[in-house]
């Protein structure tokens, strides 16, 4: 049988069985692609969610004080009610027009003012269809001209288009307008009431979930804003945020690592320091923010101090634990080889824990990142968080998302790079062997390694 010679297919699901490298990389890609796909699907497939209607064309309701303009979102359930209200308003208006008193007691100038508003209701559609430019939103002559074109069907709005219902209203209104003057004249504008356009819109997600393309466009825009007076550019903001994260973290590491190592080495210091540290770390760092401002005043000092408070106590305990995890036989072997107490600390404990300490610090750097947002809200808001805060308050969530993603990316790539170079820093670990065969590192290190080999060969031949 030919089937019996076939290699059995490796199962995708098997308890604790390693996947092949190809499968692993496929899954890594999918792990990033999947959330993106879900986000895109929810954004672009209207039937999945889209609980709101985003207005392309709005209208004023005479008896309702809330004013919606094009671009605003209303709930799907309210939208038909909104349209119906404007329709019945138009019906009433038509009755009024055919009555004896078409102005219903209003003055001609106030009707004319209201009519000019109706004239401009088409503006968002005209801009989107590129009939007029962004800066022509108040250019009534051009808008008037567009009404004429629409009414005579010489041009049609394509995307978004105008509903048949609204086209009929445009024609009706144009009859009234063109009867007065073929071109727009401010003083000679129609003074009998014009019909309102019926609101038009397309279903959409709430503003807090912008679509990927909107976020991307906003991201590009956000980064191209230059520095302006006391408003820093995005690159400057990132620099400032990095300064706070790394400032607080490095300070914590500088003080915390030695204390942790000493605690892990001498039970005396462990008993003296760790119980209080253990208690202190349960007090959330943000609760100290006002205190820190009082001590360190404004600017960056209290922010760095907050990242410090948030990481330092964890760092001491983690370092102490890592130090305690050092293989006892290594210390015993060193003693039988004649190492003194001081030498045990400097020649065995410290070099022995470095690789694990490196991993600990990598994880704690991640913690430091989580404190960043709170730190930047302390005292005078600053950096990336200040931008998120401001934009969020204006509900410009498409501007907020690029920054959130950016913070994620910086943290993720810092960690990836640190993990990649671990093997270079510690060639004697398993990571070291992996690093030696890593394609990217191989390429980067080719020249230095060649130089090193030439040098060592020379010195070897020199001694023999």
């Amino acid at each position, binding site marked *: 049988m030919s089937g019996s010679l076939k290699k059995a297919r490796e199962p995708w699901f098997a308890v604790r069985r390693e996947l092949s490298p190809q499968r692993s990389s496929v899954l890594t890609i999918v792990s990033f692609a999947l959330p993106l796909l879900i986000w895109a699907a929810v954004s672009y497939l209207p039937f999945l969610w889209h609980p709101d209607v985003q207005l392309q064309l709005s209208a004023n309701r005479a008896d309702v004080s809330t004013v919606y303009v094009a671009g605003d979102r209303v709930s799907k359930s309210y939208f038909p009610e909104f349209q119906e209200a404007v329709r019945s308003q138009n019906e009433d208006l038509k009755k009024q027009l055919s009555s004896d008193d078409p102005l219903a007691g209003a003055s001609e100038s106030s009707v004319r003012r209201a009519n000019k508003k109706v004239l401009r209701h088409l503006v968002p559609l005209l801009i989107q269809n590129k009939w007029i430019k962004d800066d022509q939103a108040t250019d009534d002559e051009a808008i008037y001209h567009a009404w004429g074109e629409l009414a005579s069907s010489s041009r049609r709005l394509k995307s978004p288009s105008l509903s048949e219902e609204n086209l009929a209203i445009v024609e009706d209104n144009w009859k009234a307008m063109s009867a007065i003057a073929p071109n727009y004249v401010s003083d000679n504008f129609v003074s009998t009431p014009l019909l309102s356009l019926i609101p038009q819109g397309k279903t959409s997600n709430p503003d807090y979930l912008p679509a990927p393309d909107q976020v991307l466009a906003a991201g590009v825009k956000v980064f191209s804003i230059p520095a302006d007076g006391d408003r820093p550019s995005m690159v400057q903001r990132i620099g400032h945020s990095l300064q706070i994260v790394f400032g607080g973290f490095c300070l914590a590491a500088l003080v915390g690592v030695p204390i942790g190592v000493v605690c892990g080495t001498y039970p005396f210091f462990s008993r003296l320091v760790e119980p209080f540290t253990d208690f202190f770390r349960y007090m959330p760092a943000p609760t100290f923010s006002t205190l820190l401002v009082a001590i360190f005043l404004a600017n960056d000092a209290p922010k760095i101090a907050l990242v410090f408070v948030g990481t330092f106590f964890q760092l001491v305990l983690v370092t102490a634990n890592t130090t305690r995890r050092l293989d006892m036989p290594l210390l015993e072997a060193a003693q039988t080889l004649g*190492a003194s107490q001081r030498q045990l600390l400097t020649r065995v404990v410290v070099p022995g824990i470095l690789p694990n300490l490196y991993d600990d610090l990598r994880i704690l750097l991640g913690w430091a990142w989580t404190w960043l947002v709170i730190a930047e809200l302390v005292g005078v808001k600053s950096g990336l968080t200040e931008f998120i805060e401001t934009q969020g308050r204006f509900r410009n969530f498409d501007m907020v998302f690029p920054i959130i993603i950016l913070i994620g990316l910086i943290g993720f790539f810092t960690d990836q790079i640190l993990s990649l170079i671990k093997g270079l820093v510690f*060639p004697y670990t398993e990571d070291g062997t992996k690093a030696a065969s890593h394609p990217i590192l191989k390429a980067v290190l080719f020249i230095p390694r060649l130089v090193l080999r030439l040098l060592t060969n020379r010195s070897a031949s020199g001694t023999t």
Partner: protein
Amino acid sequence: MTPPTDILDYRTQSPEVSARFSKLKERPVVLSVKNLTKIFPSQNGDVTALNSIDFEVYRREFMCVIGPSGCGKSTLIRILAGLESETSGAVLLDGNPVAGPGPDRGMVFQSYTLFPWLTVKQNVLFGPKMAGQKGATVESEARQWIEMVGLSKFENSYPHQLSGGMKQRVAIARALANRPRILLMDEPFGALDAQTRCQMQSYLLKIWKNLDITILFITHDLDEATYLSDRILVLKANPGEVDEIIEVPVPRPRTVDQFVSPEFIATKHRIDELIHPKNKGGDDELHFPRMTKEGDDVE
């Protein structure tokens, strides 16, 4: 297991072996253990791990310590190394009492204790460096030790690149580089596979032959003890006490072929008798129910 009837008396020594032992006992005593007792205090009362142990090791002697599990052989060697303190009694090295660990007693552990961040050469140089020795002579000496354990090609390798056997060879070289008076070995080949272990035993005998070094070696392997030792210190458990010190009648130089010699078998048989007494536990007390059909016999 019924004892074979044709087993030699392990006390029977050929004239050459007998002469070797009388010469050995004329040598100076390197390590002397006097009335050594170790008691571990615990909540359920004190546990006596070692009870008045007395023995002496002569210069350039190879002595193995063997015993059932829990007889305190590891505790004994840790006290000798200074890693644990005795409750009473004394340990004398060249007649001087020892206190705490020191480079005069080299130790090879069962677990791999090479410093992972140091290369093979740096590991071997660790002891001399702790003593403040540096320079070209120390380096070239270290190279010699590495050459002696056959790892010259690997002097710049890191421990994680070596096999288990290679690691233990480096550990031996590292301990010897300190020029200790005695080499203490705590089941050093226990974690190795059978073939590597056999190879390591031969290596160790060669090294021992060519050096002025006394070795105290802990094992639970009867073959290993018999193959390596001049004398075997048999401990019994609960409490750990010296049961007997056996003079191994197998002539030197030792070879693997001697594993089936009458002297070898006699020695092993005696150790087995001591550490697996017939009346206490053993195969006889186990009950095996028959779970196969009649007529489907394999014997």
